[in-house]
């Protein structure tokens, strides 16, 4: 197994593991917190001509800590008729899927938790574990709204898993690899008809794929306009209805952390991930270690920027749109997204062979 070269490869295994766990926690919680503050607290407020939280810390920047403190103080209630063990485990399952997702995300040439060749495949597989958690939550709550919400979530997430997979296949075909790190490197070192000014981010050729991927992400994250599983005006927050205290907090964190991780993945697949076009500073993939180390620090920041832009769009859509109805969503997934993404794959394959 490759290790975190940036921290030195000769650390003992336990130390490496510890570092990975800490790094994973940071990689999940930091973007989640930033997204919540920046978009949920501030951008949404501005879009609704108000200021949002202003009391806790300068411009309310400590609001999130206040909220976490509030949630931690609350009683952990589980309904009498709930299936207690499943009920308690459900939020953790959802959060777990986020952590598993972040494990394959490369943040720099050497800054990654693990690097393996079936990265895309693994990513798509573990992202659906959260569905399981949501279904567990909905089923075990012994609440009709939760049940409806859970079942809607299951139906919806399965319907959108497919367009997501299919939209990613285009990228895989073009890159010729399923390794996320390779995909990043390829995008930044390839050239467009001999011109290498901006590398070759796949959004240029896979625009449709990118659009479908983002729509599928929106649905996967159950953000408006695909938030029927939560649907606070119909199902009173659906599968989260019965949760309180830190279990709700975990759902909440998972929601925004997953948004962050999916935005990371989208930026890897379509926007060139942690890199900027290598030609800008003459870097070859097997280049000098000096620049490597710079990229190990700068890469995460570049990626964070790309992620913020993408989550910004996700949230912007969320704050502007009303939601679909369940059957309309299914129709949209099966009748529009899947055929379009299949056509996209075909065209990509044909062009790949042609060029």
């Amino acid at each position: 197994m490759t290790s975190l070269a940036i921290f030195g490869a000769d650390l003992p295994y336990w130390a490496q593991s510890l570092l990975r766990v800490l790094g994973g926690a940071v990689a999940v919680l930091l973007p989640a917190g930033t997204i919540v503050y920046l978009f949920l607290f501030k951008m949404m407020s501005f879009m609704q001509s108000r200021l949002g939280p202003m009391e806790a810390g300068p411009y309310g920047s400590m609001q999130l800590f206040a909220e976490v403190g509030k949630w931690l103080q609350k009683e952990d209630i589980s309904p009498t008729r709930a299936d207690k063990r499943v009920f308690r485990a459900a939020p953790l399952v959802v959060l777990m899927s986020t952590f598993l997702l972040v494990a394959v995300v490369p943040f720099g040439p050497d800054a990654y938790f693990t690097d393996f060749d079936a990265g895309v495949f693994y990513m798509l597989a573990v992202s659906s574990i959260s569905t399981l958690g949501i279904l567990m939550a909905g089923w075990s709550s012994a609440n009709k709204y939760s049940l409806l919400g859970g079942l809607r979530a299951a139906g919806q997430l399965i319907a959108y898993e497919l367009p997501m997979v299919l939209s990613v296949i285009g990228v895989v075909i073009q890159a010729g690899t399923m390794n996320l790190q390779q995909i990043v490197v390829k995008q930044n070192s390839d050239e467009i008809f001999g011109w290498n000014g901006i590398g070759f981010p796949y959004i240029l050729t896979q625009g449709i794929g990118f659009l479908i991927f983002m729509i599928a992400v929106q649905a996967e994250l159950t953000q408006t306009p695909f938030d029927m599983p939560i649907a606070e005006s119909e199902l009173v927050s659906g599968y989260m209805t019965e949760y309180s205290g830190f279990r709700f907090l975990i759902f909440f964190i998972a929601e925004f952390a997953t948004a962050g991780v999916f935005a990371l993945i989208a930026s890897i697949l379509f926007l060139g991930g942690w890199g900027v076009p290598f030609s800008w500073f003459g870097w070859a993939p097997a280049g000098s270690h000096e620049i490597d180390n710079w990229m190990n620090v700068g890469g995460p920041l570049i990626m964070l920027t790309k992620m913020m832009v993408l989550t910004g769009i996700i949230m912007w859509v969320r704050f502007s749109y009303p939601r679909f109805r369940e059957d309309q969503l299914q129709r949209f997934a099966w009748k529009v997204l899947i055929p379009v993404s299949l056509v996209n794959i075909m065209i990509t394959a044909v062009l790949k062979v042609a060029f």
Partner: protein
Amino acid sequence: MQKPRIPGLLKGLGVTFGTMAQTLKPKKLGGGAATVQYPREKETPTVRARGVIALREDNCTSCMLCARSCPDWCIYIEGHKELAPPRRAGGAPRKVNKLDRFDIDYALCMYCGICVDVCPFDALFWSPEYEYSEPKIADLLHDKTKLGEWMETVPEAPELEAGAEKKKGK
């Protein structure tokens, strides 16, 4: 014939973005949020705002008209008769009603203003004062001293719009 139509989905995004830009625009340029940060900034209520009822105790003759016309029965008046010095020198001492208790239960009051309207002696006034919340509902029963303190906050009646009939002196 038709202008090319912008999809409604994009227009919607435009509206939210426009509002965000408006909120982020500095106050000097006419931007800013629609909200105010309450305990620090306060909006001034209009002159006619029905915030709280103030009492000018000297004018009250405990005639009970307000208590009787109150739809919610939230005004409680007790009084006693007293001999006051005569108006003219040499006259007989007058019997006047002296107010002992004038309570308004603001937990019951529905701010209809009927009592202020019916008062024939100009003893009750509306004040736009609004910051008198209490932690306990029973504390909302305010007595005549408290009602008298609010007299200071009663504003002058506003000018009337053009075309209005001049107010006759009461």
